[in-house]
């Protein structure tokens, strides 16, 4: 009886053993690799923020607003905005000098069509945001200062609206906190 049940139950044991080995192996690799991944993420945010605030030395994260310091003095804050683009979501990192003027904008990820919508990542479009007042952050046709990337009005509009709306929302939440 013993050998027979063993034979019948053997498939179950084999799957469980294989899964057990797989899971433990992965657990080990993860513990080895996890610090490195955290460092990479850290590094990525660091580079992103440095792009907008070149003279940044360190930053603190207070419930999804990055406060930027240069040798102790606060020089602005940054936050994430998500625009509904043509191909999908566009993640944007927005930096503000103070409650009213925009320091700079960088596109973190997008699914726009290459050659058209993807041109919102080019500096020619992004530099228009620098130094603008939040109220002026709109497309020229909507009375703003920013002219859209030719042939990609949906993507440009999406970026602009996202920056403007999230900026206002974050400024309000900052005022509430002070």
């Amino acid at each position, binding site marked *: 009886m013993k050998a027979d049940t063993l034979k019948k139950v*053997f*498939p179950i044991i*084999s*799957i469980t053993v*294989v*899964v057990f080995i*797989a899971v433990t*192996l*992965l657990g080990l*690799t*993860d513990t080895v*690799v996890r610090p*490195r*991944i955290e460092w*990479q993420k850290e590094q*990525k945010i660091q580079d992103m923020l440095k792009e907008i605030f070149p003279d940044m030395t360190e930053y603190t994260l207070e419930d999804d607003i990055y406060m930027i310091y240069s040798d102790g003095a606060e020089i602005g804050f940054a936050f994430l905005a998500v625009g509904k683009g043509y191909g999908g979501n566009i993640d944007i990192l927005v930096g503000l000098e103070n409650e009213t003027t925009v320091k700079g904008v960088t596109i973190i*990820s997008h699914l726009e*069509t*290459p*050659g*058209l919508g993807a041109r919102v990542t080019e500096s020619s479009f992004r530099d228009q945001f620098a130094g603008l007042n939040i109220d002026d952050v709109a497309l020229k046709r909507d009375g703003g200062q920013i002219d859209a990337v030719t042939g990609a009005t949906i993507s440009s509009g999406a970026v602009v609206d996202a920056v403007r709306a999230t900026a206002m929302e974050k400024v309000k939440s900052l005022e509430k906190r002070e």
Partner: protein
Amino acid sequence: MDKFRKQFIAGIIVANPLFVLALGLCPTLAVSVTIDNGLAMSGAVIFVLVASNIVVSAIRKFVPNMVRIPIFIVIIATFVTIVDLVFQAYIPALYETLGLFLPLIVVNCIILGRAEAFASKNPVVNTIADTLGVGVGFALALVTISFFRELFGTGSLSLFGVDLFTLPVLGEHPITIFILPPGAFLVIGLLLALFRRTGVTKSE
């Protein structure tokens, strides 16, 4: 040694997974936008293919027939997750571009296909030859496709950041359709036809 070589060559020309058997298409089309992606994906696929098939052929005697597919797939998934973690930690740039298609190597028809058809029936040595051949065949095909797509799609070629050259006319006005999904189908269709025309593969 001769058998090793014959098996290896077979994987590349006669049974080239991509152009002859039309297997493993899913990652190929999505990822072959630039040569860097192509190389990264081929590297990952070759590693997973060889490693998992070696393990599969090593334990082929202990695996009960009824549950052999789930067990093979778990082994392949483990190696893919290892590659996923290593890419995430050490080559984040490529990890971003490959995105969701890195985990998809698990369901890549080539790997399970080879495991099921070959590795589960032959000793380890032959499996190494076969998987290396198939892996290199897949890599060659993938790189050719990405070469054409990047050349026509962006007008310029760059290898890991180093800009090789830019085409005169295409540089400014590249044919962007080659980077879009339809371009991928077009390139593979034409390459298949070219291979059939030049007799590399037999036509239907």
